[in-house]
């Protein structure tokens, strides 16, 4: 049957044309196409890889940033803490020194008052002695007659003076 018997001519032509086509396509089609496909796949893979790398870098940068930010925040807190402490200390020192100064001033003032008081008392004593002399002089002058009375009076005065 014709359908099942392969024709000799067609076998020869098929062999020649197919093998020829194979070598032609191998040289002019498959080589450049497969090379370009491979190249494209590699470039896509490289692009994906570098994107992945960039992403990882971004992530590490971000975490670095966060770390830096955290450190900065801690630093700031520490500085603020120090400043607060320093301020408090300064305040305390100022207060104590002011108090000390005030105390000293009060102390000085007291001492001065005391000395002044002593001086004043001495002065008063001198004045009183002077007055007593004057009084006694006047009394002597005025009450020479009444001796007894005068004498008592003088005694009283003297007693009083002694008390001081």
């Amino acid at each position: 049957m014709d359908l099942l018997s392969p024709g000799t001519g067609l076998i020869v032509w098929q062999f020649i044309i197919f093998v020829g086509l194979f070598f032609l396509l191998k040289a002019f089609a498959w080589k450049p196409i497969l090379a370009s496909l491979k190249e494209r796949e590699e470039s896509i893979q490289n692009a994906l890889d570098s994107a992945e790398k960039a992403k990882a870098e971004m992530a590490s940068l971000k975490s670095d940033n966060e770390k830096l930010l955290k450190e900065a925040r801690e630093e700031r807190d520490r500085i603020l803490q120090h400043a607060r402490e320093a301020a408090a200390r300064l305040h305390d020192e100022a207060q104590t020194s002011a108090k000390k100064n005030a105390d000293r001033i009060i102390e000085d003032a007291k001492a001065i008052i005391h000395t002044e008081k002593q001086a004043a008392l001495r002065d008063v004593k001198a004045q009183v002695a002077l007055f007593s002399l004057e009084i006694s002089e006047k009394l002597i002058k005025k009450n020479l007659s009444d001796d007894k009375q005068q004498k008592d009076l003088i005694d009283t005065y003297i007693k009083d003076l002694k008390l001081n």
Partner: protein
Amino acid sequence: MKKPFLIQKTAFLTLFFVAFASFLSPSFASGSETEGGEPKKFDPNEVILHHVIDDHQWHFTDHLVLPLPIIVYSSEKGLDMFLSSRFFDEHHNPVEYNGYKLEHNHIYLTESGTAVFDLSITKNVAMLLINATLLFLILTAVARSAKNRTGKAPKGIQSFIEPIIVFVRDEIVKPNIGHHYEKFLPYLLTLFFFILFGNLLGLLPGSGNLTGNIAVTLVLAVLTFIITNFSGNKNYWSHIFWTPGVPLPLRPIILPVEIIGIFTKPFSLTIRLFVAITAGHIVLLSLICLTFIFQSYVVGVGVSIAVMFINLIELLVAGIQAYVFTLFTALYIGMATADDHH
């Protein structure tokens, strides 16, 4: 508004089918006329066979026949070349030419009656040339585009063909052959595209049944056979001649089975592609022949619809058969070149 349009469409379609049927019928009817002008009974067998086998001329209709070059060699007359139209007179009746006669697609010497060595450009050889030229033009266009657009996205025909190439490479060749697949890739790609394009071209009305011809599939299978056995490594041959893992007394019994196995592989490849494509064509032609057996327009319309769907299936078969042939070739090569796994 919709209904008149529908009626119009139906009328148009009916007209189309009637015109189609009446266009085809004279070519079929006149093909079955005898020399005496007596109308012979329509013979679907002859019509179908005529459409699926090779021919020395390209017969579109009775009024449009493309003569093809006849190239014959015989020890008596040497090499001879002439057009196939010499074998027919002006009434399409077969005549002898220059001591040759054409009978049932075979050329004989008139005197001795012996068959000549026929290297004619038959319908299938012409199809073969068209197929090869088309493949070469398309694939070199893709290659040019690939070269010109290095580092850029594929464009045009390149983006149509490249996915098919990638499919063949990644789904057929790589998984079946393994790491040294690149050596066999050009052959398998050529095979796949040759069969795919041959199948698709064969579906065109008026074209030749190239990949449904047993000579074509035989050559492809023999090439696969040669490549498989020439690339076969030590494991492959030791598997055939001294099968490991089989009890010693059984090994001589296994040997002939294994040797037969070498030859059944290309045989099954030859038959599978030939049968799948030819059977598809026979189904299509049988359905169309129904119209002329029943001589009814109603059957013609029904058959046309059925043929359309069968044609869609044939498109699927065209792809599947190209895939299967390439897959089995890759599988056989993979088996012959596999490293020892025992």
